[in-house]
């Protein structure tokens, strides 16, 4: 059962990566970015046309696209994603380092939005149509329609510029390296970007949990629980908690794509040196190997989120967990 589930998922992942790789290659090869120009950068004027052609030939740019794709895909399959032109470092190691920085940001924002959103959703659902519910809903709708960078800028202006409680930029104090910064310093720098990112993520999980709570309160099992003398609070927090939490956890995992997208914007606003900011840099400066690497990495990242969501359903929902046989 579970091995079959895993095999299907792995097969899907391979198909997905193949599709994404083909599509990105097509996009890049038809884009106006000239890899040789991007590589030589500011030295462009000092390099002759002959030298450019030598570089192009060494890279195989004179070959037809199908052959180029074959070579690139072959390299990729062996784990060689090439060298980033702006960092002069293998793509994999750039992604690895930057992702670790982003990971803490995303993890903190993800758990904050998950916990707060779930709690707010439960309260709003249990108190449907009261002032409390309306307040929470208003907040969620406002947040759902507010751009991340705007929230980021407001928070930055209030807490960093006016109040001076949080730093204005970066993941650690300028002048220090990542290793020199203390845990406290890093948390301090992490706080505002993480809050920005989670404020946006809260909306979806709150509204979803609210709907599920209301649905649970109207269900047959909730009516029966009421007949047994259970209170509304008792139904929400004792009887229906699992029924509401299961889809919420699933949703939270399935929203890793939006989290990544939000991180790109939040990191840009706070000049936070994570993978999101690196993506923007690679795009602006035409670092094609890095850009392709990030595309593939984010594909796997989002896929993992969806995979976790499915896996949790399979492990937690007794109806899908077909280990115990029916007793009759």
């Amino acid at each position: 059962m579970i091995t079959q589930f895993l095999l299907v998922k792995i097969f899907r992942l391979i198909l997905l990566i193949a599709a994404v790789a083909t599509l990105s290659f097509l996009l890049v090869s038809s884009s106006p970015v000239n890899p040789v120009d991007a590589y030589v950068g500011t030295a462009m004027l000092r390099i002759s046309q002959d030298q450019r052609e030598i570089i192009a030939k060494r890279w195989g740019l004179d070959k037809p696209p199908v052959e180029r794709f074959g070579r690139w895909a072959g390299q990729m399959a062996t784990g060689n994603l090439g060298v980033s032109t702006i960092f002069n470092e293998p793509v994999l190691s750039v992604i690895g380092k930057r992702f670790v920085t982003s990971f803490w940001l995303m993890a903190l924002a993800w758990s904050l939005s998950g916990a707060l959103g779930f709690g707010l959703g439960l309260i709003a659902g249990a108190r449907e149509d009261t002032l409390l519910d309306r307040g929470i809903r208003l907040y969620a709708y406002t947040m759902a329609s507010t751009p991340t960078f705007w929230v980021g800028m407001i928070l930055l202006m209030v807490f960093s510029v006016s109040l001076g409680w949080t730093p204005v930029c970066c993941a650690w104090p300028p002048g220090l390296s990542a290793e020199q910064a203390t845990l406290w310093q890093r948390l301090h720098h992490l706080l505002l970007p993480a809050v920005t990112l989670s404020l946006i993520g809260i909306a979806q999980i709150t509204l979803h949990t609210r709907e599920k709570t209301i649905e649970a309160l109207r269900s047959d099992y909730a009516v029966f629980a009421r007949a047994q003398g259970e209170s509304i609070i008792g139904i929400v927090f004792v009887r229906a908690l699992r029924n509401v939490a299961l889809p919420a956890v699933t949703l939270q995992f399935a929203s890793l794509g939006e989290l990544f997208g939000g991180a790109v914007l939040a990191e840009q606003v706070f000049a936070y040196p994570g993978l999101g900011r690196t993506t923007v840099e690679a795009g602006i400066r035409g670092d094609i190997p890095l850009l392709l690497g990030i595309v593939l990495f984010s594909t796997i990242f989002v896929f993992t989120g969806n995979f976790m969501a499915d896996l949790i359903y399979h492990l937690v929902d007794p109806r899908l967990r077909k280990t115990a046989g029916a007793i009759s």
Partner: protein
Amino acid sequence: MLDIQNLSIRFTRYTFGLKKKEVCVVRDFDLSIAPGQVMAVIGQSGAGKSLLAHALLGILPRNAKVEGRILFKGKPLTPERLSALRGREIALIPQSITALNPLLRVGVQVARAARLSGISKKDVPTTVRRAFSRYLLRKEVAHCFPFQLSGGMARRVLTATATVGMADLILADEPTSGLDPITAREALTHLRELADTGKAVLLITHDIAAALQVADMVTVFCAGTTVEVARADDFKGLDQLRHPYTRALWDALPANSFIGTMKPIERTSDAAGCPFQPCCNDQNTVCGQSTPELKDSGEGRVRCHHA
């Protein structure tokens, strides 16, 4: 034990432009039941039987309004009193097995009901075990999830859940629906046993044949109104029955002449006249003008201008 007079249940609905519309689902409903009795409430599906059970427990949706006099153990059943009695003195055996939470183990759900019915924490495990064995549920069933149970077992779990406490009034909503004849018979026997221990059992069903197997008395429910109260024995023959609707139901029993299936009876909220009038063969002008009173008739009661 329970005495209901002139019960009505209305729903307020908002239609276009926030116009309030009231729908009256149950009205002029009367019923009384004594300890040790099985009182069957018979009505077609959609007659408002489940709503009646929910009204007695005070668990109707918020847009429902209940009016009328309900006495429980001689005292009016106010909302405050109800919230203290619910699950302790009045218990529900629900209509559908979807009343079990699909994600919680059966044992946990029965234990929670026991705790809510006022049993002390340390006595819960023994009480639950006793309830399980009373309904021939093996110990392992407690560790099952509802989807792992057969229909009959799930029914017994519902009965065990409702009776794990010391409730004196049991409301059984369609306890035989979806069961094969043998399992249905078993469910009815359980209800009879409960009544024989001194509880009052309200057996709500659309299946007269099933109800007559165990009921002492029958209240016939037509379009949300009580039209007849009869002894179960009165159903032995057509001539003992007082109301044309009851006689039509009797005719429709498989064992009897079987004239044809009954049309469902619907009544628009505040139409005057006898609720059964649209389908009655024996009507005259007065039937269309005023709703008849519920009159005593022998050991039963009847609501008909001609009885």
